[in-house]
């Protein structure tokens, strides 16, 4: 199905199943520990052995020699694979750096060997006996230092955010110079780790020249393609399966070393092999969100109309890597005739930077939305009013393009009322609650919508059960449920009559999970396949497909009617299709909007910040399932609190690695950090996005949270902190006198 004109009325609009806050159909499996994640896939391939990955002990250099003799002689060891005996390997299209290092080492904890043994414990013990002699080389580990000479670079994240090296509209410099009110500040965001619960894990099993991989991956087709490319085998020789994923956040968008090393290990051991990356490897072996340095300048007239806005961002990555596209939202969020954005990219020898939940916008909004708060204060305006003043219904860079749907103002106004914004004292450091300085802050939320083709197969069985098969993944987001809701709505069935099978490369290729593009596009693909199945059903029953109505388990056409199962009584019916997109995404600017509000307390003695309550208001097209959507948003808000207050990969600039590489050192919020969270969805449909009229929500919930918290901290203390995370030492010496 080619989707190239805005959707009219269709069966989804009945909203008998879609749009209902249904429980996740995979919920009981998750809560009873019976959802088979990659490492515990059942039935497990017979005779599986265990692989343990050895990470490089140096960040940059060359392996002079490896002594495997002790490891080989250790109990239970079956095989050891290194670059020397792995055979000739390619590199995946989505990988910046090769996944198996040696003799050259590109970054700390890059995999340099996998040790295979009968048990996990034996493999781990033997891995510690691998002796490596390195020749260390000088590396580039200091972002600030390297940015001094870094060139301008355009680029896009693999999740879809993109920006050119420099982009100009009007004359920024002149307009800024002559603006009656000017603001200019620089913000920093640190490297962050995805820190998902389930580590990267895979089981690989060869059968002759064919390879089966059970893994934890967000993008089946990307992972399968890159594994084939790396192993130099045909893609159709690989079956790649990832039915359950215990969190990804972008860290599992790509083929990573667990899957490759499992495949190589299984080939060497002539047995299936299980590999899970040990927690200390997650930070340095896999990808991370790159740190940024962002300068923002805003010029406005005295009434708060923006006349000039510039956002310049610098980040670093491995050679051949890309920039963090942190300026992306600044091109679209606010009006202003004179605009400039630019990105610089430094070459670093730290681990590979790549997409993490809302790449581009997440760190970009952390900076931009503090700047908006600061500028509002400079103008003497309420920060909500300042944003409303500069709302735009067209792409500010290309005014001929309208936003398909844009209800930022609605989100801001709803939030203002629901959060009790009128109780906020605009003068900072005025409100106390015992020891605590109390403040409120807000930020706009923005994340682009991305169209991705997505396919599905739908089968109607003799028993009347509809089975959906697509390689779409459920990374904890609710894909199983919204896909079932979509098929149920289309076929006129209760959700219990639909079975959903996901995450298998033998199913049609889907959008996959990333960039908050999963929900709208994968359900769009299921919609398309269901349209075909409806045609097949009508045809089998001898009805006119154009007039057939599917409802309550029956098919009606005129005064004729039959049970849906009737159509399959002589054999299963199957239909497959994919949704493809025309140029609606070019014609219209498709984005999601929201507003984040936070109230914080800052301990007047210790400077510790604790969030007291939060609110998100979202306008993101049709909400397919308000319950799973809310879960996505509160999860994202939690991640935003982490980014605001504690998450930072600490760089050792001498040795070139992230030092705090476990969950004791890299702190993410726990329950005690997260107070009452409220989420409101505005009633909206976006007919340009897909027949589902839905857009994504999982990243919108994050974009802006950090700034809302930071602005609340400022409102509490009167001390502006522009460096994330806002740990206590950044304002301790400037806090108001202790009462």
């Amino acid at each position: 199905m080619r989707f190239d004109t805005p959707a009219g009325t269709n069966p989804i609009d009945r909203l008998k199943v879609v749009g209902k806050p249904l429980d996740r159909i995979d919920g009981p499996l998750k809560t009873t520990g019976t959802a088979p994640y990659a490492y515990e896939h059942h039935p497990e391939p017979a005779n599986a052995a265990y692989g343990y990955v050895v990470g490089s002990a140096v960040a940059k250099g060359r392996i002079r020699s490896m002594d495997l003799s002790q490891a080989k002689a250790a109990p239970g060891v079956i095989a050891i694979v290194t670059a020397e005996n792995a055979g000739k390997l390619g590199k995946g299209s989505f990988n910046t750096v090769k996944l198996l290092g040696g003799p050259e080492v590109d970054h700390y904890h890059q995999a340099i060997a996998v040790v295979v043994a009968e048990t996990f414990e034996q493999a781990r013990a033997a891995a510690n006996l691998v002796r490596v002699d390195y020749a260390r080389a000088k590396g580039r580990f200091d972002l600030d230092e390297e940015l001094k000479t870094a060139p301008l670079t355009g680029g896009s994240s693999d999740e879809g955010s993109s920006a050119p090296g420099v982009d100009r509209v009007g004359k920024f410099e002149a307009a800024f110079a002559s603006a009656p009110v000017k603001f200019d500040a620089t913000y920093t965001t640190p490297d962050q780790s995805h820190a998902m619960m389930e580590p990267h894990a895979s089981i690989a099993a060869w059968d002759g020249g064919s390879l089966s991989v059970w893994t934890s991956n967000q993008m089946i087709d990307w992972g399968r393609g890159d594994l084939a490319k790396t192993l130099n085998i045909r893609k159709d020789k690989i079956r790649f399966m990832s039915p359950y994923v215990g969190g990804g956040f972008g860290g599992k968008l790509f083929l990573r070393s667990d899957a490759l090393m499992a495949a190589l290990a299984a080939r060497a051991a002539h047995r299936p092999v299980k590999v899970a990356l040990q927690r200390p490897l997650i930070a340095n072996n896999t990808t991370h969100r790159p740190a940024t340095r962002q300068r923002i300048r805003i010029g406005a007239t005295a009434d708060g109309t923006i006349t000039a806005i510039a956002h310049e961002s610098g980040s670093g990555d491995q050679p051949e890597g890309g920039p963090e596209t942190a300026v992306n939202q600044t091109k679209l969020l606010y009006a202003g005739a004179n605009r400039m954005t630019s990105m610089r990219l430094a070459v670093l020898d730290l681990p590979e930077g790549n997409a993490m939940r809302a790449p581009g916008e997440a760190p970009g909004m952390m900076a931009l939305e503090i700047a908006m708060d600061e500028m509002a204060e400079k103008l003497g305006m309420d920060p909500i009013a300042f944003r409303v003043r500069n709302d735009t219904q067209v792409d500010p860079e290309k005014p001929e393009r309208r936003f398909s749907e844009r209800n930022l103002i609605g989100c801001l106004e709803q939030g203002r009322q629901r959060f009790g914004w009128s109780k906020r004292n605009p003068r900072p450091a005025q409100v106390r609650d015992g020891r605590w300085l109390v403040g409120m802050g807000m930020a706009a939320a923005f994340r682009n919508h991305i169209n991705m083709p997505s396919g599905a197969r739908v089968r109607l069985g003799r028993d009347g059960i509809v089975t959906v098969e697509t390689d779409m993944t459920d990374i904890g987001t609710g894909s199983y449920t919204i896909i079932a809701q979509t098929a149920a709505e289309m076929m006129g069935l209760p959700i219990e009559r639909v079975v959903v099978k996901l995450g298998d490369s033998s199913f049609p290729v889907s959008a996959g999970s990333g960039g908050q593009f999963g929900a709208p596009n994968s359900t769009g693909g299921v919609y398309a396949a269901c349209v075909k199945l409806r045609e097949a059903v009508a045809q089998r029953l001898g009805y006119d497909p154009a007039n057939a109505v599917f409802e309550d388990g029956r098919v009606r056409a005129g005064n004729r009617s039959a049970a849906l199962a009737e159509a399959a009584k002589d054999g299963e019916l199957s239909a497959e299709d994919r949704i493809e997109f025309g140029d609606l995404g070019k014609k219209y600017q498709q984005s999601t909007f929201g507003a984040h509000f936070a109230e914080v307390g800052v301990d007047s003695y210790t400077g510790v910040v604790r969030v007291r309550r939060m609110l998100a208001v979202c306008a993101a097209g049709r909400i397919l399932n308000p319950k799973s959507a809310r879960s996505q948003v509160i999860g994202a808000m939690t991640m935003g609190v982490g980014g605001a207050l504690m998450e930072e990969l600490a760089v050792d600039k001498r040795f070139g690695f992230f030092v705090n590489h476990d969950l004791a050192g890299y702190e993410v919020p726990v329950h005690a950090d997260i107070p009452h969270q409220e989420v409101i969805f505005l009633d909206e449909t976006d007919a340009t996005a897909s027949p589902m009229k839905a857009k994504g929500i999982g990243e919108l919930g994050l974009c802006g949270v950090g700034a809302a918290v930071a602005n609340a901290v400022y409102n509490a203390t009167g001390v502006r902190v522009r460096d994330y995370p806002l740990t206590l030492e950044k304002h301790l010496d400037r806090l108001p006198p202790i009462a």
Partner: protein
Amino acid sequence: MKAFTYERAASAQDAAAKASSLQGARFIAGGTNLLDLMKLEIETPTHLIDVNGLGFDKIEKTQDGGLRIGAFVRNTALAADMRVRKGYGVLSRALLAGASGQLRNKATTSGNLLQRTRCPYFYDTNQPCNKRRPGSGCAAIGGYSRQLAIVGASEACVATHPSDMAVAMRVLDAQVETVNAAGQTRAIPIAEFHRLPGDTPHIDTVLAPGELITAVTLPKPIGGVHLYEKVRDRASYAFALVSVAAVIQKDGSGRVAIGGVAHKPWRVEAAEAAMPQGAKAVAAQLLAGATPTEDNAFKVPLVERTLAAAMHEARAA
């Protein structure tokens, strides 16, 4: 993890005897720290002596009105004990500020005292660390040191002791009772129990090889307001940046010990004379000669401010 042998000890003396005669032997009780360190091969014992079955799991009154806490009393039980809550509130609060519910259910009193540092370089076996591998050097010095020591450190080691409980024990003048291979017992004042790193940072305590902790005793309750102020980025399940254990009397006099700043719970009794004059005067003496890094310089004012918070709470109580 290296392969190891395992046995259950028959008696305390037997355990001590085996531990002192078998090279590479270690006691195991709750195992909440040791097992993690073994998996990472930071600790590589060849033989484990399980002391869980030895008893030492009661909290009893002592003759002088104090408490004797068995070495293997779990942190959860100790924190919840009514005698502890009434007479030694600072201890209960410190315990509950540490770790998580699950860990406290398993962790023991003696094991808590014997926790190893959480210095990230100690945890990364690719990095030199004098505490992990004597003589290999210290990667933490000149590295990421936000969590690390500001007082009492050496050129060989800047690690901190991670325990909350031990800080409270220090302010309460606890004594650590032990037995050795010969069956001899001794009571070690908590002040002397943990060592400063000096040039032998691999040795955390004054315990002799094989010496087994059997109890921790607390003197008679001293009254006052008991406070444990723990400062950390995350509200729970995080080690202290700085913590203050304080017992403050109505007249403003009192005692204070600090966590998160040194290789041991930090207390300078002489500084406590200044308690009635306020936090600044006390902190100045407590941290005299401090050698913070750029990363952890904030701990110096933070100690003073956290102590001021404790004093504020004491006045409000």
